């Protein structure tokens, strides 16, 4: 049901853009208004959200420790899984962000007859997530060729590696298919696994459908319904230089472009914010120097507690009778 809701939303968006591309007057909307609105929503939302996180205090130092602490000299500590230096934290964060370290730990539980509990390593989610994110990154970088003149060397380099196999004309990009494959797996997983289906919201299907639609229209434009690169580059450069051109690139391009705008627009208001959240998560980005360095809580208000004097007043007679030393005789 939630999946259908999300799919429906994407279909409406596609129809909207397809329709818009056919109506002359609307080209201003889809070529100018929408991209600027999307950029504004993206930047505004991103800054607002990150600022609101940054403004919120971190009252306590609460790293989740996943290895041996630093204590006695002769016990080796887990430098990254339980970091006690800034360098260690950077290492831990790099492992999380670049390699999805925690997701790599994933196991699957099975309960066998007789109540035996089996934990088996489950790396598929990790592999698909990694494949998806890296393809996305590569595709993102490849797209810079539309926004730069001259195209920087690293963009060209990535592009040539990506099309290394030179299959087809124009040669296919490996990451395009890796991306779609990985997204397909992530979607299928949500639909097929009963637990995943149960926890999934429309908010979870929406980005998947959106990215699949973006990827598919992208592949279609490159390999099936060729779109004129020069026109597109003119559109892209126009937006960046604040002198937008409205000469559209056809229905397929309008749809692709519109969906990308939607992706940017919803980014800060959706779970996609995990991109920023992962860097700021207190259980991961803090060193376990808990007892070595005092952490300050900005709202550490005083809390009344029962003082020793009050305690002794309550129990003095009993303490004296038992021969326990007291302050006031």
């Amino acid at each position: 049901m939630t999946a259908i809701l999300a799919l429906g939303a994407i279909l409406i968006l596609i129809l909207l853009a397809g329709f818009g591309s056919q109506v002359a007057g609307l080209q201003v909307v889809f070529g100018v208004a929408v991209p600027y609105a999307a950029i504004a929503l993206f930047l505004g939302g991103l800054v607002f959200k990150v600022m609101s996180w940054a403004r919120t205090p971190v009252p306590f130092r609460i790293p989740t420790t996943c290895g041996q602490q630093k204590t006695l000299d002769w016990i080796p500590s887990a430098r990254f899984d339980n970091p006690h230096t800034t360098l260690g934290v950077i290492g831990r964060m790099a492992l999380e962000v670049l390699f999805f370290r925690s997701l790599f730990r994933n196991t699957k539980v099975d309960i066998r007859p007789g109540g035996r509990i089996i934990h088996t390593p489950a790396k598929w989610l990790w592999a698909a997530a990694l494949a998806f994110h890296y393809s996305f990154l590569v595709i993102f970088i490849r797209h810079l060729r539309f926004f730069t003149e001259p195209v920087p060397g690293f963009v060209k380099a990535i592009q040539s590696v990506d099309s290394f196999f030179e299959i087809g004309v124009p040669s296919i990009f490996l990451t395009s298919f890796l991306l779609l494959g990985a997204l397909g797996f992530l979607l299928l997983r949500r639909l097929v696994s009963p637990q995943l289906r149960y926890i999934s919201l429309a908010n979870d299907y929406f980005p998947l459908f959106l990215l699949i639609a973006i990827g598919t229209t992208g592949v279609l434009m490159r390999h099936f319904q060729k779109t004129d690169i020069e026109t597109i580059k003119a559109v892209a450069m126009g937006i960046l230089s604040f002198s937008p051109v409205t000469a559209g690139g056809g229905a397929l391009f309008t749809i692709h472009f519109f969906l990308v705008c939607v992706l940017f627009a919803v980014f800060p208001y959706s779970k996609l914010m995990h991109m920023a959240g992962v860097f700021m998560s207190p259980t991961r980005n803090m060193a376990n120097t808990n007892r070595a360095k005092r952490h300050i809580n900005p709202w550490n208000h005083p809390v009344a507690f029962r003082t020793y004097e009050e305690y002794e007043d309550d129990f003095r007679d009993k303490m004296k009778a038992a021969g326990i030393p007291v302050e006031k005789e």
Partner: protein
Amino acid sequence: MAEHKPDQMEFYKQEELQQIDLNPPKEGWQDQPADFRPGSWIYPTKPKHLESLGMPNPREWSPADEDWQLPENWQEIIHKKFKELLGKYRSFRIFMDTCVRCGACADKCHFFIGGGDPKNMPVLRAELVRSIYRNDFTTVGKILGRACGGRKLTMDVIKEWFYYFYQCTECRRCSVFCPYGIDTAEITMMAREMLHELGLGVNWIMEPVANCHRTGNHLGIQPHGLKDTLEFFCEDIEDVTGIHIDPPINKKGAEVLFVTPSGDFLADPGTFTCMGYMMLFEEIGLDYTWSTYASEGGNFGLFTSADVMKKLNAKIYAEAKRLGVKYIIGGECGHMWRVLNQYMDTMNGPADFLDVPKSPITGTVFENSRSTKMIHITEFTADLIKHGKLKLDPKMNDHVRVTFHDSCNPARAMGLLEEPRYIINSVCNNFHEMPENTIREQTFCCGGGAGLGTDENMEMRLRGGMPRGTAVRHVQEKYDVNQLACVCAIDRATLVTVCDYWAPGVQVTGVHELVANAMVMKGQKERTMNLRLEPLPGAEEKEANDGES
């Protein structure tokens, strides 16, 4: 056979508990009210405890009632507290915003594994709160509501919170696996804090809190009672070793203040661990003292709210100052060490009136506690053993075959993994690890942490304890393990039940009980009994031989 009640473990048949379907039902979770069946929830706080602590809405009520007698404006109260917490904790905000529902945490929770209730998947437990967050605190949620995972705050939601946030032991296992480190324990702490605003809490937590406030410890042991208890332990120690100990109490000018969870004073097998500490300190001649005022290391305030935690914990530094000690050593306890390691210095520091802990025996300076000035007893003992300062005869423990249970908090909020293992390996010849997905940072909870270890919650305890219990049974079958060592007072209370049920025949022990049994004390008599006053196997034979000759 007598009729059993839901608060007794015999009430539950293993085969029935083992019929677990991890597949969720067809209908969505959003509108399923919690099912308050006996054995799966904890009695509410008695009004007198809330009154003594000055907490809101004290009254007689029961979760089984239809009407929970909440204040008229309960929605407003929750909303206000929710907003306050979002403003105070970055963790809460980020955990509300970033979950992608990838499901990696889903089958990591012992309550989900042992019960199959989908709302015990950490991700859904968090969604119980997150759905309200979306609906009430995000623009998109306010517009789209249900369509983007929002829910209205209804009475059923409050009931569901009460049910499921007292089915989370704040063990943090889910957090280890989450790609963003989302810690459901943190969300549980927030939810419980909100519920307390309406006077919704459980007696098993709030009675100890009230006791601790007044008498200095959860159990309500008064000063003279504590003295009697410690002296009673010393009598047993004398029976076993021939050595007489006078326990120092509230002694000004001692070098070390020793604080342990009060569970160690009251119930076996914690009491044997407590004897172990005393024997160790006697043997090395440590100048230390017990305190009757700060007679609790554990802190059920952690399971209540940040302020209550701070209130109870404050006594430890206050007492260290009054007595003029140099530093503090803490006993074997799990959640206590979560507080001492991650909260105490921040809340109640700076402890600038204390010295950096330095072992008077080995001269080791505990740089890791440079600021907090409090070290874990296993850090202290491991250092002693490493320097050869204890005379140990591991053969004394040859009749035990030990495995080690990493308690959640020392493992995942500290990283105390090798110290206890080093000690156990020094005092025992037979040590066997449980499977690797069930130990160290992946350890499974006893099922009774965070204030859930009471008998009326028996079904959930047995279910939650099943992953741990099953792993124990595994090493019992494979290696003939007969003792489960741990460094936690809650474990020593709850794992006894878990083992009796899932791995009968395995006893629970503290690490310092094992130490004391293997320690050859200066001037001791020949040991024929262990600290439990059970005859040692060798001694039995010898007596028998003596009899024959």
